[in-house]
């Protein structure tokens, strides 16, 4: 379990996160749901040590997790919002770079890359990533996050701008990862994706947590989940 407690962050005098607390559980997909500008990306950046929060603590189970410490960060892999690949490298080279960062053994890395490429239907070609289609790029970005097989997987809008067949493939892979016991957090503002994938729901708006609970609890707020969401975020 990865737990966030009392996270706050201001940019200038804009309080972007206000005392945010929640957790992501093992073997569950947690939807991190919120409208544009709610503070989802900022929360994820703080969790990965990209920005320094003003207040707040993180825990992995019961041990404090300090994002600045490289060894602790090894437990988390991620897909960032608007993330890009190294366009001059080919798909394999992009993956192998990540494998080296996580210090995977060469033969192990090669085997895992091959497996992920098969699973996500990424062609194992030698062409540089800049010649890939958008869907292919997005799949490679996900493959890059799955490669080190971390306990925690954090995804910031991984399905934006992707066609239905590709979405389908990605969803299946995520479900499988969850069933292997991983704690997955998944930020989005699309409700159908939540219904399709999530077991846990966290709703954030204006930098505050407005709801946290299971998908069934979320559904019980209102017959229509769109109405429920609207009621939470206003």
């Amino acid at each position, binding site marked *: 379990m990865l737990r966030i407690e009392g996270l706050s962050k201001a940019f200038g005098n804009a309080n972007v996160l206000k005392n945010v607390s929640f957790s992501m559980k093992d073997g569950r997909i947690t939807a991190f749901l919120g409208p544009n500008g709610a503070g989802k990306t900022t929360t994820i*950046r703080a969790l*990965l*040590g*990209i*920005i*320094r929060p003003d207040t707040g603590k993180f825990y992995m189970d019961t041990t404090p997790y300090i994002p600045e410490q*490289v*060894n602790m*960060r*090894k437990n988390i892999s*991620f897909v*960032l919002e*608007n*993330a*890009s*690949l*190294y*366009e*001059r*490298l080919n798909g394999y*080279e992009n993956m192998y*770079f*990540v494998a*080296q*960062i*996580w*210090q995977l053994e060469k033969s192990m890395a090669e085997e895992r890359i091959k497996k992920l490429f098969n699973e996500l239907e990424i062609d194992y070609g030698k062409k*540089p990533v800049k010649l890939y289609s958008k869907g292919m790029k997005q799949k490679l970005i996900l493959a890059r996050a799955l490669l080190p097989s971390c306990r925690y997987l954090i995804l910031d809008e991984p399905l934006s701008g992707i066609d239905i067949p590709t979405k389908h493939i990605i969803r299946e892979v995520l479900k499988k990862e969850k069933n292997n016991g991983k704690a997955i957090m998944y930020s989005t503002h699309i409700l159908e994706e939540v219904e399709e994938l999530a077991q846990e729901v966290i709703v954030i708006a204006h930098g505050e947590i407005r709801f946290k609970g299971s998908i069934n609890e979320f559904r019980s707020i209102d017959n229509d989940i769109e109405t429920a969401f609207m009621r939470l975020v206003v």
Partner: protein
Amino acid sequence: MKGIISIIKKEFLNSIRDKRILYMSIILPVFIYPLFLLLPLSFTNEKINNVKEKKIIVGLFKMEPDSALKTFENKNYAFSSVDSVNVEFIKSGNVDIILSKDSFYNVFYDPEDIGSQLAMERFSKDVETFNKEILEGMLKKVGLSSDWINSVNIKKIPLKKKNISSFYIMLIAFLIMWSVIGSSAVIIEATAGEKERKTLEYLIALPVSRESILIGKIITTFIFGFVSSFLMFLAFSVAFKFFLPQASKSLLYLNSVSFKYVHIIVLIIILTMLSFDMLLTTLSIFAKSIREAQMYMMPISFLLILPIIFMQMFSKDLDSWVYFVPVLNSIVEIKELLIGRFDSHNLLVVILVYVAFIYIFFKRALRSFKSEKAVLRS
């Protein structure tokens, strides 16, 4: 350590496939720069060689070839007549020098035309020889030895070795500067470029420390700069050796150069390049785009050339304070070492100045790289 190596590998792959980087750090220094140097020099070279062998055309003003001049015809001279003493005849290439006669032979030449100047020199030398031959003939007739002509002989003996040419020093200075400027494309790509392509945020979130990332990027930049300057050195050497043997003698005085301290010279070059890599890193980390980074780079390239200009102006007596001025101190120290003078005190100052420079700018760059403002700037 493993982190640094994987960063270097990635940066290397990325840079070697960047056309701009290849152009700046390989094509320009190895092909274009030597060409810039070769063309004007080979032009002069050719002119010098030409005058030595070709027929000199003497324009005669108000005179006919006299008996003396006639003997010159088999010494590779030709005569034509001109109706005035006018530099235009030389400029147009019709004649090399113009000759008129009163109590002297007046030799007119164009001081701005190297061909005309060399023709004048050859002509006066040949006249001298001619006079000597006449005298010798006369002495022989009266049964005297020609040794009488040279009753006093001189022999020129240099008291010290010819100093290293300032042209050679300039060449070395430019070599360092060009390679620094060339490798700046690598660090710009690795910092501002990553920001522009939206990969920097991903990179810093990976489980590898910012120190490792920064060091990996700087090492890659340094390798490109070093290889580039080495290739440039080779290219220039080849250019001089095979295409301009004449110029390499008269411009470089290569014979007077000593390579006894070449390892120290390489060390100074490494320190100079590293210092500037640090400075460039500090600036380009802050930039949000490649374009902005290039803008910051411009005054730096100018700063690099300043000491070279300075050197040219005050090459005679430089005080010991020059050893405290980056770039200038490298140039002066390398020059000293090339003429075989080694002063451990000055060398120590140079090394300490660079170590301090490198330390300060690395700290500064790291601070920028750790600040979310600089990293997320867009």
